[in-house]
């Protein structure tokens, strides 16, 4: 089942002064349960594409339909609510709130959703155990390693029960062991919970694990490869 449909997507920055064509007509469809890597050289437009899919930026032309909703037509207020309910974010530099503990970082998203205290407390503990941080729940980000912080970020992204998770270069700041652990964890979540993951990455280790690799060059889809499942394992 298709959860993201992108049609004729264009993004031009500074259209009146010095136009920069970041995206030049992208058509893309992502179905539920995919483990997709979006790759491409710097400046190719992959971060812009991720911003469009995440409803963080609006297209100059074209549509981004998520779960049947054209996000490019939503007002900023509705867009924030839409993101909160439908999209989980994982960032390159983890981007946890430094003043909150791991547990509080995960709980916070559910509080924003207005969930009951007992519910979000229980789910935060479950998620942190699931990502292997059952014994570090009450540590602040500054007391966790990069790999552990990124696991908290994944738990936070999952907390809102999103339709998919957007991960912008999630392994860029991690060592090989942490990268391997994180990817393994994401693959388990993808397989067992059918969670859709979309990455932008340069990291070959991530590309090797992806089941679909979309290559962006000069704001266009240059290649869209479905990798054999066995190979991706």
């Amino acid at each position, binding site marked *: 089942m298709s959860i993201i449909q992108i049609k004729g997507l264009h993004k031009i920055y500074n259209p009146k002064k010095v136009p920069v064509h970041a995206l030049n007509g992208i058509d893309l469809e992502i179905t539920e349960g995919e483990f997709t890597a979006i790759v491409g050289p710097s400046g190719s437009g992959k971060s812009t594409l991720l911003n469009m899919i995440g409803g963080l*930026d609006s297209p100059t032309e074209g549509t981004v339909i998520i779960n049947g909703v054209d996000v490019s037509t939503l007002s900023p207020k509705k867009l*924030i609510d839409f*993101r909160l309910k439908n999209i989980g*974010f994982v960032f390159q530099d983890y*981007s946890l709130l430094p*003043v909150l503990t791991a547990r509080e970082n995960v709980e*916070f998203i559910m509080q924003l959703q207005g969930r009951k205290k007992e519910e979000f407390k229980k789910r935060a503990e479950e998620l942190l155990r699931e990502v292997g941080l059952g014994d570090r729940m009450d540590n602040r980000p500054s007391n966790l390693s990069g790999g552990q912080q990124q696991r908290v970020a994944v738990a936070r992204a999952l907390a809102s029960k999103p339709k998919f998770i957007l991960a912008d270069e999630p392994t860029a700041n991690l060592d090989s062991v942490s990268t391997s652990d994180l990817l393994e964890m994401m693959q388990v979540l993808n397989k067992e919970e059918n969670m859709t993951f979309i990455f932008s990455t340069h990291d070959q280790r991530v590309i090797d694990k992806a089941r679909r690799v979309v290559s962006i060059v000069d704001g266009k889809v240059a290649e869209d490869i479905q990798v054999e499942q066995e190979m991706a394992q």
Partner: protein
Amino acid sequence: MITAISWRNIWRNPTRSLVIIIAVALGLTAGIFSVALMNGMTEQKMRTAIENQTSHIQLHHPEFSVNKDIKLHLNNKAEIEKILEDNPAIKGFSSRTVAGGMLASSRGSVGVQLNGINPEKEKQVTAIWQNMIEGDYFEGDSRKPILISQKTAEKLEVKLRSKLVVTLQDSEGEIVGAAFRVSGIFKTTSTTFDETQVFIPKKALQDLLQLPAEIHEIALVLNDLEQVPIIKEELQKELGESVKIEDWKEVLPELAYLSDATVQTNVLFLAIILVALAFGILNTMLMSVFERVKEIGVLMAVGMNKLRIFSMIVIETVFLSVSGSLIGVLVGVALIKWTSQEGISLSMFAEGLASWGVSDVIYPTLSAGFYIILMFMVLITALLASIYPARKALSLNPAEALHGLNN
């Protein structure tokens, strides 16, 4: 959670937060103390004026306050005094005969108001007897004693037991005079009062004026100053229109204006301090927002709406301001409590203060109500100071903010 995040956020940079908290605390301590000092001066001036001049309420002939004609005396004296004696709210009263006249020594002369008083009754309403610095308060055996102030004694170059000649116009319009002997010298905190008032026995003045047993003024003191409006109304009903009843504010309207003006000046003074502090707070919050552009972008991305982001910045600002204010108020209260016991000596400004009717020892004072107004003002200041940083945070584009850019 937003409240907890806001509180923890202000301690992310403890040095910066402490600097602004201390600045707010110092500003408010200084402001509160200055206001308390001003209040202390004003209250002292009012208390001195009430104790020495106006008492709580004064009774006159209806036209006497406009035209100080000695013929405008109170006609139904006995009836009035009976009503006053029967009123339990009245602590004491004193009937006076008053007239303007000239006081002369061999070295000079001054214009004064002569107050003919019953010394014992006067003790109940004014504090002149407590302000004697030489001689006594009509206790000697002098046949025609007069109490003058130290200022008047200096002007006329006289001392205790010196002879002074009083000259005035009697009720028939004739110029009359009599010699008095200085039996006591007083000194109050008001130079103006000291330079214009002298006291002689009531009978002596009545004889001079040829107004046997007539009085122009009754000054009275109540058990409770707060009851002045009620008793004034009560007396007006009982005594009718033949007697003009004025409270201390009406007798000396400038005192009432001073009281109101002091409150307004104090509020304005603190408002100026708070405006200056608001810019400090605004600067701190702006720095804090600009340092967290990426973090705010993340919060927007993960679904924190604008109202919550706005609230977070406002709450941080309120925490910063209120923390500093509470410290400032506590230090201010302690300082006022400490200095109000012994008073603050401003002896180097004694002359200037005396001409304003205040002693050179000031007792700072501040009412509880003022602290409530102050905290309200602090809250308003914090809210105003938070608007610009909060709007800056809201103006961020999440996609740009995530890459650490701000517009």
